[in-house]
C-alpha cells in the first residue's frame, strides 16, 4: 500500500454520487493499480460510497453542520502528515470552494480551481480549467513541493463501475481543536424548481434575451421543459445561478436544447457536450454556438419565440375548435 500514490478525496455532501465520480478523474491521473484512495466523509453518509474507496475516514456530521471549515482543514493537515498524499481532490461545491483554498494555504501548496479535465505530460500533471470568463481553456500545473491540489467541477466526471474494492472505515479519533463562530440560525427550503441537469428539454436564453427572459420561460413551459440561461444573463442578475449552463454553471445532457440569443462562449459550449439536438437562434449565423448546432435559425430570438408560440397556440386553438 505504501508504494502506491496516496490520494485524498473530500466528500461532496451536496450530491453523494459526485464523490464517486471523482474516481474517474483519479483514473486519468495515475496508472491502474498504482493508487490508493481515501475518502474523508461524514459519519452518516458512507453507505453509498463503500466499495469504491480503499479507505474512508469519517468525521462527525456536526463539523459540517457548524460550518467548521477550519476544523476540516485541521483534519486534512493531520491526515496529510500521516499519509503524505500525492494529490487532494475536493468537489467545487459551495462548501468545497471555501474549504479547498484554506487547506491549500495550510499545506503551503498550489490550488487549481474548478478543474474539468487533466492530462499527463512527461514532467507534470496539467490541470485544465476555463479562463478569461470561460473564453479560453488553460492548462495549469502545480510547482510547489506540496501535494497536487484541485477543486473539481462537480459535473465534469462520471464513474460508472460497480463497487469493487474492499473499503476499510476509520473514524477520525483525534479531537478537533479548531472552532467556528458561525451559528446557523435558520434554514429554509426554496420553492422546488427542479434541476436543469434532469430536464429533457432546455430553453436557454443569453445576452440577446436580456430584456425578454419571461418569453424564454414561457416557451419552456409550453414545451414542457425548463428555462436555463447563459453566464451573461446570470451576471446581469436576470436569471438565478442555479439555472446557469456551462462550465461556469451546470453541464447539461438534455435531448433538446434551444440556445436563444446565446453567442457561445467556450465555457458554455463545453457545457453542452452531452446534448442530443441543439437549435441555435441568433442574429448572426457566424456566432460560435451555430457551429455546434443541428439547426440554426438566423434572426431575432424574441421574434422567433413570439412566432413559434403563436404557431403552437394556433394549432391548439384549432384542435379545441374541432373537438
Amino acid at each position, binding site marked *: 500500500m505504501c508504494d502506491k500514490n496516496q490520494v485524498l478525496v473530500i466528500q461532496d455532501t451536496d450530491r453523494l454520487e459526485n464523490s464517486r465520480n471523482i474516481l474517474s478523474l483519479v483514473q486519468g491521473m495515475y496508472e491502474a493499480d498504482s493508487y490508493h484512495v481515501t475518502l474523508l466523509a461524514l459519519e452518516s453518509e458512507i453507505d453509498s460510497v463503500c466499495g469504491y474507496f480503499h479507505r474512508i475516514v469519517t468525521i462527525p456530521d456536526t463539523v459540517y453542520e457548524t460550518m467548521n471549515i477550519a476544523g476540516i482543514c485541521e483534519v486534512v493537515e493531520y491526515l496529510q502528515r500521516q499519509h503524505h498524499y500525492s494529490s487532494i481532490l475536493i468537489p467545487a461545491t459551495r462548501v468545497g470552494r471555501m474549504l479547498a483554498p484554506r487547506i491549500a494555504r495550510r499545506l503551503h501548496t498550489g490550488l487549481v480551481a474548478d478543474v474539468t479535465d487533466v492530462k499527463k505530460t512527461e514532467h507534470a500533471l496539467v490541470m485544465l480549467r476555463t479562463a478569461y*470568463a470561460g473564453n479560453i481553456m488553460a*492548462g495549469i500545473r502545480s510547482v510547489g513541493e506540496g501535494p497536487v491540489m484541485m477543486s473539481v467541477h462537480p459535473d465534469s466526471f462520471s464513474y460508472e463501475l460497480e463497487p469493487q474494492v474492499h473499503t476499510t472505515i476509520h473514524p477520525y479519533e483525534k479531537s478537533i481543536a479548531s472552532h467556528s463562530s458561525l451559528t446557523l*440560525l435558520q*434554514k429554509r427550503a426554496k420553492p422546488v424548481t427542479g434541476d436543469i441537469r434532469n430536464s429533457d428539454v432546455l430553453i436557454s436564453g443569453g445576452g440577446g434575451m436580456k430584456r425578454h427572459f419571461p418569453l424564454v420561460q414561457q416557451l419552456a413551459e409550453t414545451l414542457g421543459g425548463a428555462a436555463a440561461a447563459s453566464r451573461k444573463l446570470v451576471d446581469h442578475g436576470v436569471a438565478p445561478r442555479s439555472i446557469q449552463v456551462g462550465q461556469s454553471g451546470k453541464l447539461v445532457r438534455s435531448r433538446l436544447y434551444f440556445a436563444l440569443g446565446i453567442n457561445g462562449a467556450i465555457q458554455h459550449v463545453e457545457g453542452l457536450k452531452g446534448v442530443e439536438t441543439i437549435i441555435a437562434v441568433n442574429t448572426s449565423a457566424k456566432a460560435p454556438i451555430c*457551429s455546434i448546432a443541428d439547426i440554426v435559425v438566423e434572426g431575432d430570438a424574441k421574434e422567433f419565440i413570439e412566432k413559434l408560440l403563436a404557431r403552437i397556440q394556433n394549432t391548439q386553438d384549432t384542435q379545441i375548435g374541432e373537438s
Partner: protein
Amino acid sequence: MRRNSMKADHTEPLRIICLVKFVPDVDGFSYDYEHSRLNRSYQRMILNPDDACAVAFALQVKQAHPSAHIEVVTMAPRTVEPHLLDLLRLQIDTGVLITDPAFAGSDTYATTTVLETYLGGRSYDCILTGTCTLDGATSQVPAQLAQSLGLDHMQDITGIDLNSFDREQAVFTVEDDNDTYTYQMALPGILSLTRASGYKLPYIAYEDFTKDVSANLTVVTNQELRCPPEQIGLTGSLTQVVETFVPEHQRREHRTVQVDEDGIEYIYTMLKERGYV
C-alpha cells in the same frame, strides 16, 4: 485558529475594509476563430461586480453609522488609480493601492501573501469582499486570507442584516440551489457577497465629479510591506499556467432557416414529430 488580525478598539468607530479587484470587462472579449486568438482590444477595466456589492453594503453601513470608517484596498497595477479615485468620490474614507512590479504574475497564493502582510498590520472589524471575480472566478483569495489571518469566512452571501451588523457580529443569508441559510458570525471575520445580493453602488454626486480625493489615496509598495521576493510574484506562485488553448469542438452539419413562416414551420414540424407539442 491563529488570530493575528487586529480587532478595532471599542472606543473607535466601526472599521470596514473592502477588498476589491478591478477586472477586465469580459463582455468585451471575443474569440477570433480564424486566427485562434482571444480578442481583447475592446477590453476596459471595471470594478468586479461582486466586489461592487461589498462596497455598496459598506456604504449602507456608513449611512446608518456615519462614524463608520471604510477603507477600500486593491492590489493592482498603477493604471487602476483613476478607478480607485472614483470610488473615493463615493464617501469612501480611504483607498489603498497595493502595487509593485515585484507583485506581477502572482497567483492566488502569492497574492494572499501580499494582502496578508498588509492586513496583518491593520485594525478592522470586518473585511468585505466579493465571492467571485469575473475573470478568474476561483474564489480563492478571501478564503486563503481567512486561513492566514485566523478568521472565519463565508461566501455566496446574498444579504447582510444592517440592523444587527456591529463590531461584534454579523447576521447574513447565503443561498444555494435548494436552500436559504441564515447565519450569525462573530467579527472580525471575512464576508464575501455575490451579485445576487443586489447591493448597488450609488452614482457619484455631480458636484463630486472633479473633487480632488487624491489625499485619501495611499500607495503601498513592497518597500513598505517587505514581502520576501521568493514569496511573491511569479517566483512565489505555486501554480503555473503552461498553456492556453481553444478546445476543438465537433462541428455539426446544420440546416439554416430564417425567422419567417417557412423557418417557424420547419421548427414546429420538428417539435411535433418528436412529441414536444
